[in-house]
């Protein structure tokens, strides 16, 4: 029978009965041969929105990395005789009411900052850095915490689960914005001690404090998600099979369960990045974010909020930069989720 020609493709023939038969079964092309991650990736590559968003994010990353190179393209200011620098103040370009006397020019593509006369383009370009660094670092850190605690709670169950779930509930009950606003200075103080630190050092400490606070208050969602997933995965038969085989618990967690969480974890992390960026900007607006002389979009928006009519060049580039980055990141997050879970497709 097997000698029969098989002109039709697409059917699986399985040599089930004749043990030891060396004839290879026919290929079956309907079931595509890729892991779920690969499937998601190939879907993502076909998603036009995702690609555009990725390009935007990439653009901002490049801006951030090459910011000094970018603003060095501005020409020398004829009045001050120096090249733009995000930190150098030029009050000579400012009138006695604090407003710039120069507008946008080849020396200052976006003009200069009211009151201080710092180059706005340089500050805008370098201002992409804090957003991106805070977004990604805090997301990475909260992902690690969330996944670890979620895994432990979900798999071990019992007391560990009770404790971790309680901590999650506890954190979720806190009025986070207010608490964060209150804790930022307290934490900065305990890190920095009192006095003895210069503005630059303080601004660096503040940066770290912000990242820490953001992820300390941001891991619960993922932990809950992972816990739930692990709880259901733990009952899945392949995990039972691994246990029946005698695979040690740690290997079950990391080799059997964790790979199945890659999807939700990536999705959650991709949603966390824009959320943290937004949060940083909000904190800066409320005065608990980054401090001078750090250039950040959130800070610029806070500074410029009242001059958006009088001096629009100050506010809007940062608003647009921030909104565009957040939008691109969250659309990208959506695309990633869709790629992992096509049933939620738009």
């Amino acid at each position: 029978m097997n000698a029969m020609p098989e002109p039709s493709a697409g059917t699986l023939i399985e040599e089930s009965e004749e043990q030891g038969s060396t004839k290879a079964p026919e290929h079956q092309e309907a079931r595509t041969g890729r892991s779920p991650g690969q499937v998601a990736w190939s879907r993502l590559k076909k998603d036009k929105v995702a690609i555009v968003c990725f390009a935007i994010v990439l653009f901002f990353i490049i801006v951030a990395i090459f910011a000094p190179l970018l603003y060095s393209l501005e020409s020398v200011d004829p009045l001050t005789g120096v090249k733009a620098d995000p930190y150098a103040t030029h009050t000579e370009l400012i009138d006695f009411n604090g407003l710039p006397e120069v507008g946008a020019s080849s020396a200052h593509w976006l003009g200069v900052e009211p009151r201080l006369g710092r180059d706005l383009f340089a500050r805008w370009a370098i201002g992409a850095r804090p957003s991106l660094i805070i977004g990604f670092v805090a997301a990475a850190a909260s992902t690690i915490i969330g996944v670890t605690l979620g895994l432990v709670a979900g798999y071990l169950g019992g007391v560990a689960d009770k404790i971790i779930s309680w901590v999650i509930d506890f954190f979720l009950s806190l009025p986070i914005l207010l608490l964060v606003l209150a804790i930022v200075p307290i934490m900065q103080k305990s890190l920095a001690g009192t006095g003895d630190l210069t503005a630059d050092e303080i601004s660096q400490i503040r940066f770290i404090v912000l990242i820490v606070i953001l992820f300390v208050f941001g891991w619960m969602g993922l932990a809950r998600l992972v816990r739930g997933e692990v709880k259901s995965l733990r009952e899945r038969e392949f995990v039972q099979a691994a246990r029946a085989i005698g695979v040690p618990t740690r290997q079950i967690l990391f080799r059997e369960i964790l790979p199945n969480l890659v999807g939700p974890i990536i999705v959650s992390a991709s949603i966390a990045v824009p959320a943290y960026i937004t949060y940083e900007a909000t904190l800066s607006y409320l005065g608990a974010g980054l401090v001078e002389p750090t250039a950040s979009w959130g800070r610029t928006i806070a500074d410029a909020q009242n001059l958006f009519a009088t001096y629009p060049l100050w506010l809007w580039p940062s608003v647009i930069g921030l909104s565009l980055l957040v939008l691109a990141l969250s659309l990208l997050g959506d695309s990633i989720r869709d790629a992992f879970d096509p049933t939620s497709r738009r």
Partner: protein
Amino acid sequence: MLTYILRRLALALSVILATLVSTFLIFFAGPSDPARAMCPETRCNAQRLEAITKSLGLDKPLGAQFLDYFKGLFVGRDFLYAGDTVHCGAPCLGFSFVTRRSVNDELFSRFPNTVVLALMAAVVFVTIGVAVGIFAAVRRGTALDRTVVGASQVLGAIPYYVLALLVALYPVILWNILPQYSSLSSGVGPYFLGMLAPALILGFVTSASYVRYTRNSMIETLSMDYIRTARSKGISERTVLLRHGFRAAMSPIATILGLDIAALLTGTLITEQIFGVDGIGRRGLAALKAQDLPVIMGTVLIGAVVVVIMNLVVDIMYSFIDPRVRLS
């Protein structure tokens, strides 16, 4: 069911207690020194500082301070002030370091404003969010759907306070289309009208996420087997969508809604600040600037209690929405 409620109640209490202890430790044992913040700049000498420290009760050991605070919460406590004992009834949140007034007065008098703002905003975002979300779900995949979802995403990406500022400035101040906030003392009408602008923008921006929740929930519900059953009965598509789809799709939304309202009760801070609404968020922010610990703590505690209670309410409410939970 009763087991469940009792367990939730115990959990809620433990969370509140933990919030209490941890905020107390963070704020009171933390490195900031409110006495110094209080001490008048040029006249601050050692005795003066000591007197202030003493009058704030900060000279006692931390444990004793906590016990005092704790006692105040449950049975009230007495404060010594200007040679007089002032009684502060339970739940006593202490006395403001700055205004020397009872924190209860400070916060509870403002809480209604926050509640009104949050509820008005909730009305806005629930109406817009649910209506648009259902619309998008039913028209799933069309250009309209994509526009709605895209717009909600754009709205979510713009920093909220920029939008709020624009609203506060143009329609309210410059064009005078919407009235400015005014306190209840200037009349009920002006009060609610004045809440309109902050509630609208807060609600409108929040509705972005509700559009997406509702849409996703509705889409998921519409793929359920029981919707197919409903269709097979020969009832109209509208009935299928509303009586069968909507009902089930709304129950997860109700959960989120409860939590969001709870979150709004302490999260309207930016809105309150920008529109000058005299709520507890704004008061908390002012307390932060003045390092007025009892007020900060009071605000945080009220926030936590509200969240915990809302959580509880939502859980219990959920069990009424979903008979499967109710009777298990």
